[in-house]
Protein backbone atom coordinates (compact mmCIF):
# COMPACT_ATOMS: atom_id res chain seq x y z
CA UNK A 1 0.00 0.00 0.00
CA UNK A 2 1.24 3.44 -0.79
CA UNK A 3 3.00 5.11 2.09
CA UNK A 4 3.21 8.89 2.47
CA UNK A 5 6.90 8.79 1.54
CA UNK A 6 6.11 7.09 -1.73
CA UNK A 7 3.35 9.58 -2.39
CA UNK A 8 5.83 12.41 -1.89
CA UNK A 9 8.04 10.84 -4.53
CA UNK A 10 5.13 10.48 -6.91
CA UNK A 11 4.13 14.08 -6.48
CA UNK A 12 7.62 15.25 -7.29
CA UNK A 13 7.60 13.15 -10.42
CA UNK A 14 4.27 14.58 -11.49
CA UNK A 15 5.96 17.73 -12.70
CA UNK A 16 9.35 16.34 -13.67
CA UNK A 17 7.99 13.23 -15.36
CA UNK A 18 8.26 9.47 -14.90
CA UNK A 19 4.86 8.48 -13.59
CA UNK A 20 2.96 5.47 -14.84
CA UNK A 21 -0.54 5.98 -16.20
CA UNK A 22 -1.96 4.36 -13.08
CA UNK A 23 -0.01 6.66 -10.78
CA UNK A 24 -1.08 9.70 -12.74
CA UNK A 25 -4.67 8.51 -12.69
CA UNK A 26 -4.53 8.21 -8.92
CA UNK A 27 -3.12 11.69 -8.28
CA UNK A 28 -5.41 13.41 -10.77
CA UNK A 29 -8.47 11.58 -9.48
CA UNK A 30 -7.64 12.70 -5.96
CA UNK A 31 -7.20 16.22 -7.24
CA UNK A 32 -10.56 16.17 -8.98
CA UNK A 33 -12.27 14.86 -5.89
CA UNK A 34 -10.75 17.67 -3.82
CA UNK A 35 -11.57 20.29 -6.42
CA UNK A 36 -15.21 19.25 -6.39
CA UNK A 37 -15.53 19.32 -2.64
CA UNK A 38 -17.08 21.91 -0.42
CA UNK A 39 -15.87 20.61 2.93
CA UNK A 40 -14.43 23.82 4.24
CA UNK A 41 -16.42 26.91 3.29
CA UNK A 42 -14.35 29.73 1.87
CA UNK A 43 -14.27 32.81 4.05
CA UNK A 44 -14.81 35.55 1.48
CA UNK A 45 -13.44 38.29 3.69
CA UNK A 46 -10.13 36.52 4.24
CA UNK A 47 -9.84 35.79 0.54
CA UNK A 48 -10.46 39.42 -0.40
CA UNK A 49 -7.94 40.59 2.17
CA UNK A 50 -5.35 38.19 0.85
CA UNK A 51 -6.01 39.17 -2.74
CA UNK A 52 -5.57 42.81 -1.83
CA UNK A 53 -2.26 42.07 -0.15
CA UNK A 54 -1.25 40.06 -3.17
CA UNK A 55 -2.02 43.00 -5.43
CA UNK A 56 0.40 45.10 -3.42
CA UNK A 57 3.15 42.54 -3.75
CA UNK A 58 2.85 41.92 -7.46
CA UNK A 59 3.97 44.15 -10.32
CA UNK A 60 0.37 45.00 -11.20
CA UNK A 61 -0.87 48.47 -11.96
CA UNK A 62 -2.22 49.71 -8.68
CA UNK A 63 -5.49 51.65 -8.31
CA UNK A 64 -5.94 54.87 -10.23
CA UNK A 65 -5.99 58.17 -8.33
CA UNK A 66 -9.77 58.45 -8.68
CA UNK A 67 -10.33 55.17 -6.90
CA UNK A 68 -7.92 56.07 -4.15
CA UNK A 69 -9.63 59.36 -3.40
CA UNK A 70 -12.95 57.62 -3.02
CA UNK A 71 -11.60 55.16 -0.51
CA UNK A 72 -10.16 57.66 1.96
CA UNK A 73 -13.34 59.39 3.16
CA UNK A 74 -14.78 56.01 4.14
CA UNK A 75 -11.81 55.16 6.28
CA UNK A 76 -12.22 55.34 10.02
CA UNK A 77 -9.17 53.71 11.55
CA UNK A 78 -5.55 53.47 10.51
CA UNK A 79 -5.58 49.67 10.40
CA UNK A 80 -8.25 49.61 7.71
CA UNK A 81 -6.49 52.34 5.78
CA UNK A 82 -3.38 50.24 5.68
CA UNK A 83 -5.21 47.11 4.56
CA UNK A 84 -7.46 48.53 1.88
CA UNK A 85 -6.08 50.51 -1.03
CA UNK A 86 -3.61 48.93 -3.31
CA UNK A 87 -0.25 49.55 -1.71
CA UNK A 88 0.46 48.61 1.85
CA UNK A 89 2.87 50.93 3.61
CA UNK A 90 4.17 50.36 7.12
CA UNK A 91 6.35 52.23 9.51
CA UNK A 92 8.70 50.41 11.78
CA UNK A 93 6.70 52.08 14.54
CA UNK A 94 2.92 52.29 15.08
CA UNK A 95 0.59 53.06 12.19
CA UNK A 96 -0.88 56.55 12.06
CA UNK A 97 -4.52 57.58 12.47
CA UNK A 98 -4.67 60.87 10.67
CA UNK A 99 -6.02 61.21 7.15
CA UNK A 100 -3.38 61.76 4.50
CA UNK A 101 -3.00 65.18 2.89
CA UNK A 102 -3.28 65.07 -0.85
CA UNK A 103 -0.23 66.84 -2.20
CA UNK A 104 -1.36 68.43 -5.43
CA UNK A 105 -5.13 68.55 -5.48
CA UNK A 106 -5.37 72.12 -6.66
CA UNK A 107 -2.11 72.64 -8.52
CA UNK A 108 -1.81 70.98 -11.91
CA UNK A 109 0.28 67.83 -12.01
CA UNK A 110 3.72 68.87 -13.23
CA UNK A 111 5.75 65.95 -12.05
CA UNK A 112 4.81 62.94 -14.19
CA UNK A 113 6.41 59.51 -13.93
CA UNK A 114 9.35 58.49 -16.07
CA UNK A 115 9.08 56.64 -19.32
CA UNK A 116 11.38 54.57 -21.48
CA UNK A 117 13.88 56.46 -23.57
CA UNK A 118 17.57 57.19 -23.85
CA UNK A 119 20.30 58.90 -25.83
CA UNK A 120 22.77 56.85 -27.81
CA UNK A 121 26.15 58.41 -28.47
CA UNK A 122 28.03 56.68 -31.26
CA UNK A 123 31.81 56.40 -31.53
CA UNK A 124 31.95 59.28 -34.00
CA UNK A 125 30.12 61.56 -31.59
CA UNK A 126 26.70 61.48 -33.25
CA UNK A 127 23.83 61.45 -30.81
CA UNK A 128 20.57 59.67 -31.46
CA UNK A 129 17.47 59.91 -29.33
CA UNK A 130 16.00 56.50 -28.66
CA UNK A 131 12.32 56.75 -28.14
CA UNK A 132 10.54 53.64 -27.10
CA UNK A 133 8.13 53.77 -30.00
CA UNK A 134 8.69 52.23 -33.38
CA UNK A 135 11.16 49.60 -34.48
CA UNK A 136 13.94 50.84 -36.64
CA UNK A 137 17.53 50.35 -37.65
CA UNK A 138 19.72 52.89 -35.92
CA UNK A 139 23.07 52.30 -37.51
CA UNK A 140 25.46 49.84 -39.03
CA UNK A 141 28.78 49.80 -37.26
CA UNK A 142 31.76 47.61 -37.88
CA UNK A 143 29.92 44.45 -38.67
CA UNK A 144 27.05 44.99 -36.28
CA UNK A 145 23.59 46.26 -36.94
CA UNK A 146 22.13 48.40 -34.21
CA UNK A 147 18.37 48.17 -33.96
CA UNK A 148 15.64 49.63 -31.89
CA UNK A 149 13.35 46.67 -31.31
CA UNK A 150 10.31 46.81 -29.03
CA UNK A 151 11.76 49.76 -27.17
CA UNK A 152 15.13 48.09 -26.61
CA UNK A 153 18.48 48.69 -28.22
CA UNK A 154 19.76 45.49 -29.77
CA UNK A 155 23.08 44.67 -31.43
CA UNK A 156 23.04 42.01 -34.13
CA UNK A 157 26.24 40.79 -35.64
CA UNK A 158 26.15 40.87 -39.42
CA UNK A 159 29.22 38.73 -39.91
CA UNK A 160 29.28 35.09 -38.94
CA UNK A 161 31.54 34.22 -36.04
CA UNK A 162 33.78 36.50 -34.01
CA UNK A 163 36.36 38.72 -35.54
CA UNK A 164 38.86 37.81 -32.87
CA UNK A 165 41.85 39.68 -34.17
CA UNK A 166 40.28 42.70 -35.73
CA UNK A 167 41.14 45.22 -33.03
CA UNK A 168 40.97 48.16 -35.34
CA UNK A 169 37.26 47.55 -35.74
CA UNK A 170 36.38 48.21 -32.11
CA UNK A 171 34.43 51.34 -31.50
CA UNK A 172 32.58 52.40 -28.39
CA UNK A 173 29.05 53.57 -27.85
CA UNK A 174 27.40 55.12 -24.85
CA UNK A 175 23.75 54.88 -23.97
CA UNK A 176 22.64 57.40 -21.40
CA UNK A 177 19.29 57.92 -19.74
CA UNK A 178 18.30 61.33 -18.46
CA UNK A 179 16.34 61.76 -15.25
CA UNK A 180 12.85 60.44 -15.70
CA UNK A 181 13.81 57.85 -18.29
CA UNK A 182 14.84 54.21 -18.10
CA UNK A 183 15.99 51.98 -20.93
CA UNK A 184 16.83 48.43 -21.89
CA UNK A 185 19.47 47.21 -24.29
CA UNK A 186 21.04 43.99 -25.52
CA UNK A 187 24.81 44.11 -25.93
CA UNK A 188 26.66 42.48 -28.84
CA UNK A 189 27.18 39.26 -26.85
CA UNK A 190 23.53 38.92 -25.90
CA UNK A 191 23.91 40.36 -22.41
CA UNK A 192 20.77 42.20 -21.34
CA UNK A 193 21.10 45.49 -19.55
CA UNK A 194 18.41 47.58 -17.86
CA UNK A 195 19.43 51.16 -17.24
CA UNK A 196 17.67 53.13 -14.54
CA UNK A 197 17.11 56.88 -14.71
CA UNK A 198 20.13 59.20 -14.82
CA UNK A 199 22.51 56.41 -15.77
CA UNK A 200 24.79 55.44 -18.60
CA UNK A 201 26.66 52.50 -20.04
CA UNK A 202 29.80 52.69 -22.17
CA UNK A 203 30.57 49.58 -24.24
CA UNK A 204 32.25 48.37 -27.42
CA UNK A 205 30.17 47.56 -30.49
CA UNK A 206 31.81 44.14 -30.60
CA UNK A 207 33.46 42.12 -27.85
CA UNK A 208 36.72 41.11 -29.46
CA UNK A 209 39.63 40.18 -27.28
CA UNK A 210 39.79 37.90 -24.26
CA UNK A 211 37.51 39.94 -22.01
CA UNK A 212 34.21 41.81 -22.18
CA UNK A 213 34.46 45.26 -20.56
CA UNK A 214 31.79 47.88 -19.99
CA UNK A 215 31.54 50.97 -17.80
CA UNK A 216 28.49 52.36 -16.09
CA UNK A 217 27.38 55.35 -14.11
CA UNK A 218 24.13 55.43 -12.14
CA UNK A 219 22.25 52.16 -11.86
CA UNK A 220 22.03 49.12 -14.10
CA UNK A 221 20.78 45.58 -13.88
CA UNK A 222 22.60 42.91 -15.86
CA UNK A 223 21.73 39.47 -17.17
CA UNK A 224 25.09 38.46 -18.51
CA UNK A 225 25.29 35.99 -21.38
CA UNK A 226 27.39 32.94 -20.60
CA UNK A 227 30.83 32.91 -22.14
CA UNK A 228 33.46 31.14 -20.09
CA UNK A 229 36.19 32.20 -22.48
CA UNK A 230 35.46 35.89 -21.95
CA UNK A 231 34.88 37.10 -18.41
CA UNK A 232 32.55 40.09 -18.20
CA UNK A 233 33.76 43.16 -16.31
CA UNK A 234 31.72 46.17 -15.22
CA UNK A 235 33.51 49.28 -14.07
CA UNK A 236 31.79 52.01 -12.05
CA UNK A 237 33.54 54.82 -10.17
CA UNK A 238 36.20 53.11 -8.10
CA UNK A 239 34.78 49.63 -8.34
CA UNK A 240 35.06 46.81 -10.81
CA UNK A 241 32.86 43.74 -10.92
CA UNK A 242 34.02 40.56 -12.61
CA UNK A 243 31.34 38.19 -13.78
CA UNK A 244 31.06 34.77 -15.38
CA UNK A 245 27.42 34.54 -16.38
CA UNK A 246 24.88 35.86 -14.04
CA UNK A 247 22.14 38.29 -12.94
CA UNK A 248 23.08 41.26 -10.80
CA UNK A 249 22.31 44.90 -10.10
CA UNK A 250 24.81 47.71 -9.60
CA UNK A 251 23.79 50.99 -8.05
CA UNK A 252 26.52 53.60 -8.39
CA UNK A 253 24.94 57.03 -8.40
CA UNK A 254 27.28 59.92 -7.59
CA UNK A 255 24.89 61.32 -5.01
CA UNK A 256 24.60 58.05 -3.11
CA UNK A 257 26.97 57.39 -0.21
CA UNK A 258 28.01 53.94 -1.41
CA UNK A 259 28.07 51.71 -4.50
CA UNK A 260 25.77 48.74 -4.00
CA UNK A 261 26.13 45.58 -6.04
CA UNK A 262 23.39 42.99 -5.53
CA UNK A 263 23.70 39.45 -6.88
CA UNK A 264 20.60 37.47 -7.85
CA UNK A 265 22.04 34.49 -9.68
CA UNK A 266 25.52 33.19 -10.47
CA UNK A 267 28.74 34.53 -9.02
CA UNK A 268 30.60 37.82 -9.17
CA UNK A 269 33.83 39.19 -7.79
CA UNK A 270 33.78 42.79 -6.65
CA UNK A 271 37.10 44.68 -6.74
CA UNK A 272 37.75 47.96 -5.01
CA UNK A 273 41.00 48.24 -3.04
CA UNK A 274 40.18 44.73 -1.80
CA UNK A 275 38.09 41.91 -3.33
CA UNK A 276 35.04 40.02 -2.31
CA UNK A 277 33.11 37.22 -4.00
CA UNK A 278 29.34 37.43 -3.83
CA UNK A 279 26.84 34.59 -3.59
CA UNK A 280 23.22 35.01 -4.70
CA UNK A 281 21.25 37.07 -2.22
CA UNK A 282 24.27 39.07 -1.13
CA UNK A 283 25.06 42.71 -1.65
CA UNK A 284 28.46 44.35 -1.67
CA UNK A 285 28.46 47.87 -0.25
CA UNK A 286 31.52 49.77 -1.37
CA UNK A 287 32.54 52.99 0.31
CA UNK A 288 36.27 53.05 0.65
CA UNK A 289 36.07 49.51 2.01
CA UNK A 290 33.75 46.65 1.09
CA UNK A 291 30.99 45.26 3.29
CA UNK A 292 28.79 42.30 2.39
CA UNK A 293 25.18 42.07 3.49
CA UNK A 294 22.30 39.68 2.90
CA UNK A 295 19.51 41.62 1.28
CA UNK A 296 16.09 41.38 -0.24
CA UNK A 297 17.17 41.06 -3.88
CA UNK A 298 13.62 41.67 -5.02
CA UNK A 299 13.77 45.15 -3.56
CA UNK A 300 17.12 45.86 -5.21
CA UNK A 301 15.79 45.14 -8.69
CA UNK A 302 12.20 46.27 -8.20
CA UNK A 303 12.96 49.34 -10.33
CA UNK A 304 13.49 47.24 -13.42
CA UNK A 305 10.20 45.49 -12.81
CA UNK A 306 8.40 48.81 -12.75
CA UNK A 307 8.18 49.24 -8.99
CA UNK A 308 9.44 51.15 -6.05
CA UNK A 309 10.03 48.60 -3.31
CA UNK A 310 11.36 49.82 -0.02
CA UNK A 311 12.17 47.57 2.89
CA UNK A 312 12.90 49.76 5.89
CA UNK A 313 14.61 52.18 3.56
CA UNK A 314 15.68 55.56 4.96
CA UNK A 315 13.39 58.28 3.68
CA UNK A 316 16.31 60.24 2.24
CA UNK A 317 17.23 57.34 -0.06
CA UNK A 318 13.61 57.05 -1.12
CA UNK A 319 13.39 60.75 -1.94
CA UNK A 320 16.53 60.48 -4.09
CA UNK A 321 14.98 57.62 -6.10
CA UNK A 322 11.80 59.62 -6.51
CA UNK A 323 13.79 62.68 -7.60
CA UNK A 324 15.57 60.71 -10.31
CA UNK A 325 12.50 58.98 -11.63
CA UNK A 326 10.17 61.96 -11.61
CA UNK A 327 12.95 64.43 -12.45
CA UNK A 328 12.08 66.51 -9.42
CA UNK A 329 13.99 68.55 -6.90
CA UNK A 330 13.67 67.69 -3.22
CA UNK A 331 13.59 70.46 -0.65
CA UNK A 332 13.69 69.50 3.01
CA UNK A 333 11.89 71.59 5.58
CA UNK A 334 12.32 69.00 8.30
CA UNK A 335 14.84 66.50 9.59
CA UNK A 336 14.16 63.04 8.19
CA UNK A 337 17.32 61.33 9.33
CA UNK A 338 15.61 58.76 11.58
CA UNK A 339 12.68 57.97 9.32
CA UNK A 340 12.35 54.73 7.38
CA UNK A 341 9.60 53.37 5.18
CA UNK A 342 8.47 49.92 4.14
CA UNK A 343 6.22 49.45 1.09
CA UNK A 344 5.73 48.74 -2.59
CA UNK A 345 4.11 50.82 -5.30
CA UNK A 346 4.22 50.91 -9.07
CA UNK A 347 6.60 53.44 -10.58
CA UNK A 348 4.09 54.34 -13.21
CA UNK A 349 1.67 56.12 -10.92
CA UNK A 350 1.62 59.87 -10.37
CA UNK A 351 4.09 61.22 -7.90
CA UNK A 352 1.23 62.41 -5.70
CA UNK A 353 0.09 58.80 -5.29
CA UNK A 354 3.54 57.71 -4.23
CA UNK A 355 3.90 60.63 -1.85
CA UNK A 356 0.48 60.02 -0.36
CA UNK A 357 1.42 56.43 0.37
CA UNK A 358 4.49 57.64 2.21
CA UNK A 359 2.38 60.15 4.11
CA UNK A 360 0.13 57.34 5.30
CA UNK A 361 3.02 55.97 7.30
CA UNK A 362 3.33 59.23 9.18
CA UNK A 363 6.98 59.95 8.38
CA UNK A 364 6.35 63.21 6.54
CA UNK A 365 4.00 65.36 4.50
CA UNK A 366 4.69 66.69 1.06
CA UNK A 367 3.84 69.64 -1.10
CA UNK A 368 4.41 69.53 -4.83
CA UNK A 369 5.13 72.81 -6.61
CA UNK A 370 5.86 72.29 -10.28
CA UNK A 371 9.04 70.19 -10.32
CA UNK A 372 9.80 70.71 -6.63
CA UNK A 373 8.81 68.36 -3.87
CA UNK A 374 8.88 69.94 -0.45
CA UNK A 375 9.24 67.62 2.51
CA UNK A 376 7.36 68.82 5.56
CA UNK A 377 7.04 67.41 9.07
Amino acid at each position, binding site marked *: *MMQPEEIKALLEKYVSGGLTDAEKAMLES*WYIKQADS*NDVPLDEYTMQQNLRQMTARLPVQKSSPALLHRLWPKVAAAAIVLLTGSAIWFLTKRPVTEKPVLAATTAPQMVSPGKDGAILTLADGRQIILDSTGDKIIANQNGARVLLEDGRLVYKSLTAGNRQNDRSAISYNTVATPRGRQFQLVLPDGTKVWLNAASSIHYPTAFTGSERRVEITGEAYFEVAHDKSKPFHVRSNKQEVEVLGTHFNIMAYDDEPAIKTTLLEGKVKVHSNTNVILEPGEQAIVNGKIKVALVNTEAAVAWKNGEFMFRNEPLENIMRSIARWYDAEIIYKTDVSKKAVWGTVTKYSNVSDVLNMITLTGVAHFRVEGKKIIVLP
Partner: protein
Amino acid sequence: MVTYRALSDTELVALLNKSDQLAYTEIFERYKQLLYRHAFRILNDHEVVNDIIQELFLAIWQKRETLVIHSSLTAYLFQSVRNRIFDWIAHQRVESKYLQSIHDFAEKAGFITDETIRARELNRIIEKEIASLPPKMRTVFDLSRETDLTYKEIGEQLNISDKTVKQQVYNAVKILRLKINSFLFFIHL
Protein backbone atom coordinates in the same frame (compact mmCIF):
# COMPACT_ATOMS: atom_id res chain seq x y z
CA MET B 1 -7.72 54.37 -24.66
CA VAL B 2 -7.94 50.57 -24.77
CA THR B 3 -10.14 48.82 -22.28
CA TYR B 4 -8.08 45.85 -21.28
CA ARG B 5 -11.20 44.19 -19.96
CA ALA B 6 -12.38 43.84 -23.53
CA LEU B 7 -9.28 42.07 -24.78
CA SER B 8 -9.24 38.33 -25.33
CA ASP B 9 -6.92 36.08 -23.35
CA THR B 10 -4.79 35.56 -26.45
CA GLU B 11 -4.40 39.29 -26.96
CA LEU B 12 -3.48 39.77 -23.33
CA VAL B 13 -0.78 37.13 -23.51
CA ALA B 14 0.67 38.74 -26.62
CA LEU B 15 0.82 42.06 -24.80
CA LEU B 16 2.28 40.41 -21.74
CA ASN B 17 5.09 39.07 -23.91
CA LYS B 18 5.91 42.72 -24.57
CA SER B 19 6.01 43.48 -20.85
CA ASP B 20 2.69 45.31 -20.93
CA GLN B 21 2.00 45.81 -17.25
CA LEU B 22 -1.66 46.62 -17.79
CA ALA B 23 -2.17 43.37 -19.66
CA TYR B 24 -0.53 41.54 -16.78
CA THR B 25 -2.82 43.38 -14.39
CA GLU B 26 -5.89 42.40 -16.40
CA ILE B 27 -4.85 38.75 -16.45
CA PHE B 28 -4.35 38.88 -12.71
CA GLU B 29 -7.69 40.62 -12.13
CA ARG B 30 -9.49 38.21 -14.40
CA TYR B 31 -8.16 35.00 -12.89
CA LYS B 32 -7.18 35.73 -9.33
CA GLN B 33 -10.46 34.79 -7.68
CA LEU B 34 -11.01 31.75 -9.82
CA LEU B 35 -7.60 30.32 -9.10
CA TYR B 36 -7.79 31.22 -5.42
CA ARG B 37 -11.13 29.49 -4.94
CA HIS B 38 -9.99 26.47 -6.87
CA ALA B 39 -6.79 26.12 -4.87
CA PHE B 40 -8.71 26.66 -1.66
CA ARG B 41 -11.05 23.77 -2.38
CA ILE B 42 -8.05 21.51 -2.59
CA LEU B 43 -5.92 22.85 0.23
CA ASN B 44 -8.44 24.52 2.59
CA ASP B 45 -5.72 26.84 3.87
CA HIS B 46 -5.72 30.55 3.10
CA GLU B 47 -2.05 31.10 3.88
CA VAL B 48 -0.78 28.32 1.62
CA VAL B 49 -3.19 29.18 -1.17
CA ASN B 50 -2.14 32.81 -0.94
CA ASP B 51 1.53 31.91 -1.28
CA ILE B 52 0.96 29.58 -4.21
CA ILE B 53 -1.15 31.98 -6.22
CA GLN B 54 1.19 34.87 -5.49
CA GLU B 55 4.24 32.87 -6.53
CA LEU B 56 2.49 31.80 -9.68
CA PHE B 57 1.75 35.35 -10.74
CA LEU B 58 5.21 36.51 -9.77
CA ALA B 59 6.71 33.79 -11.94
CA ILE B 60 4.43 34.75 -14.81
CA TRP B 61 5.70 38.31 -14.68
CA GLN B 62 9.30 37.18 -14.45
CA LYS B 63 9.03 35.03 -17.55
CA ARG B 64 6.62 37.32 -19.32
CA GLU B 65 8.86 37.81 -22.34
CA THR B 66 9.39 34.16 -23.07
CA LEU B 67 5.97 32.83 -22.09
CA VAL B 68 4.42 30.73 -24.85
CA ILE B 69 0.97 29.30 -24.29
CA HIS B 70 -0.06 26.57 -26.69
CA SER B 71 -3.39 25.74 -25.07
CA SER B 72 -5.68 28.38 -23.64
CA LEU B 73 -4.63 30.78 -20.91
CA THR B 74 -7.21 29.15 -18.64
CA ALA B 75 -5.68 25.72 -19.19
CA TYR B 76 -2.19 27.07 -18.63
CA LEU B 77 -3.09 28.79 -15.37
CA PHE B 78 -5.02 25.87 -13.89
CA GLN B 79 -2.32 23.47 -14.98
CA SER B 80 0.28 25.64 -13.30
CA VAL B 81 -1.75 25.78 -10.11
CA ARG B 82 -2.11 22.03 -10.10
CA ASN B 83 1.62 21.53 -10.61
CA ARG B 84 2.44 23.98 -7.85
CA ILE B 85 -0.02 22.38 -5.45
CA PHE B 86 1.42 18.93 -6.09
CA ASP B 87 4.92 20.28 -5.70
CA TRP B 88 4.02 22.01 -2.45
CA ILE B 89 2.45 18.88 -0.98
CA ALA B 90 5.50 16.90 -2.10
CA HIS B 91 7.62 19.07 0.18
CA GLN B 92 5.48 18.66 3.26
CA ARG B 93 6.34 16.35 6.14
CA VAL B 94 4.99 12.80 5.96
CA GLU B 95 2.46 13.54 8.72
CA SER B 96 0.90 16.26 6.55
CA LYS B 97 -2.87 15.93 6.26
CA TYR B 98 -2.62 16.26 2.49
CA LEU B 99 -0.34 13.26 2.13
CA GLN B 100 -2.68 11.42 4.48
CA SER B 101 -5.60 12.36 2.31
CA ILE B 102 -3.91 11.08 -0.84
CA HIS B 103 -2.85 7.96 1.03
CA ASP B 104 -6.44 7.29 2.12
CA PHE B 105 -7.68 7.89 -1.38
CA ALA B 106 -5.04 5.57 -2.87
CA GLU B 107 -6.20 2.77 -0.56
CA LYS B 108 -9.71 2.80 -1.96
CA ALA B 109 -10.66 1.90 -5.49
CA GLY B 110 -12.34 4.37 -7.81
CA PHE B 111 -9.72 6.22 -9.79
CA ILE B 112 -10.77 7.67 -13.12
CA THR B 113 -8.48 5.64 -15.29
CA ASP B 114 -9.36 7.25 -18.61
CA GLU B 115 -7.29 10.40 -19.11
CA THR B 116 -9.86 12.02 -21.37
CA ILE B 117 -12.58 11.57 -18.82
CA ARG B 118 -10.40 13.08 -16.11
CA ALA B 119 -9.74 16.07 -18.34
CA ARG B 120 -13.42 16.56 -18.97
CA GLU B 121 -14.28 16.12 -15.34
CA LEU B 122 -11.83 18.77 -14.23
CA ASN B 123 -13.05 21.05 -16.96
CA ARG B 124 -16.63 20.63 -15.77
CA ILE B 125 -15.55 21.66 -12.28
CA ILE B 126 -13.81 24.75 -13.59
CA GLU B 127 -16.78 25.71 -15.73
CA LYS B 128 -18.93 25.40 -12.64
CA GLU B 129 -16.66 27.85 -10.86
CA ILE B 130 -16.82 30.27 -13.74
CA ALA B 131 -20.58 29.98 -13.81
CA SER B 132 -20.72 31.05 -10.20
CA LEU B 133 -18.77 34.25 -10.82
CA PRO B 134 -20.65 37.53 -10.46
CA PRO B 135 -22.53 38.22 -13.73
CA LYS B 136 -20.38 41.10 -15.00
CA MET B 137 -17.13 39.26 -14.42
CA ARG B 138 -18.51 36.20 -16.03
CA THR B 139 -19.59 37.92 -19.21
CA VAL B 140 -16.20 39.45 -19.81
CA PHE B 141 -14.59 36.17 -18.89
CA ASP B 142 -16.71 34.00 -21.14
CA LEU B 143 -16.63 36.23 -24.16
CA SER B 144 -12.96 36.89 -24.10
CA ARG B 145 -12.08 33.32 -23.33
CA GLU B 146 -14.28 31.40 -25.69
CA THR B 147 -13.75 33.47 -28.75
CA ASP B 148 -10.90 35.59 -29.96
CA LEU B 149 -13.14 38.49 -30.91
CA THR B 150 -13.04 41.58 -28.81
CA TYR B 151 -16.07 42.46 -26.80
CA LYS B 152 -16.77 45.37 -29.14
CA GLU B 153 -16.86 43.14 -32.19
CA ILE B 154 -19.06 40.63 -30.44
CA GLY B 155 -21.39 43.40 -29.32
CA GLU B 156 -21.60 44.68 -32.85
CA GLN B 157 -22.37 41.25 -34.12
CA LEU B 158 -25.05 40.71 -31.54
CA ASN B 159 -26.67 43.99 -32.41
CA ILE B 160 -26.87 43.38 -36.12
CA SER B 161 -30.06 41.34 -36.27
CA ASP B 162 -32.66 40.00 -33.90
CA LYS B 163 -31.02 39.82 -30.46
CA THR B 164 -32.73 36.65 -29.33
CA VAL B 165 -31.75 34.76 -32.43
CA LYS B 166 -28.21 36.01 -32.25
CA GLN B 167 -28.04 35.13 -28.59
CA GLN B 168 -29.09 31.58 -29.32
CA VAL B 169 -26.59 31.28 -32.12
CA TYR B 170 -23.96 32.71 -29.86
CA ASN B 171 -24.85 30.25 -27.12
CA ALA B 172 -24.68 27.35 -29.51
CA VAL B 173 -21.31 28.46 -30.78
CA LYS B 174 -20.18 28.90 -27.21
CA ILE B 175 -21.15 25.40 -26.23
CA LEU B 176 -19.47 24.00 -29.27
CA ARG B 177 -16.26 25.87 -28.56
CA LEU B 178 -16.47 24.78 -24.92
CA LYS B 179 -16.61 21.18 -25.99
CA ILE B 180 -13.65 21.61 -28.30
CA ASN B 181 -11.68 23.49 -25.67
CA SER B 182 -12.36 20.96 -22.97
CA PHE B 183 -11.13 18.16 -25.13
CA LEU B 184 -7.82 19.89 -25.55
CA PHE B 185 -7.86 21.24 -22.03
CA PHE B 186 -5.75 18.87 -20.03
CA ILE B 187 -4.60 16.29 -22.49
CA HIS B 188 -1.30 17.94 -23.35
CA LEU B 189 0.45 18.10 -20.01
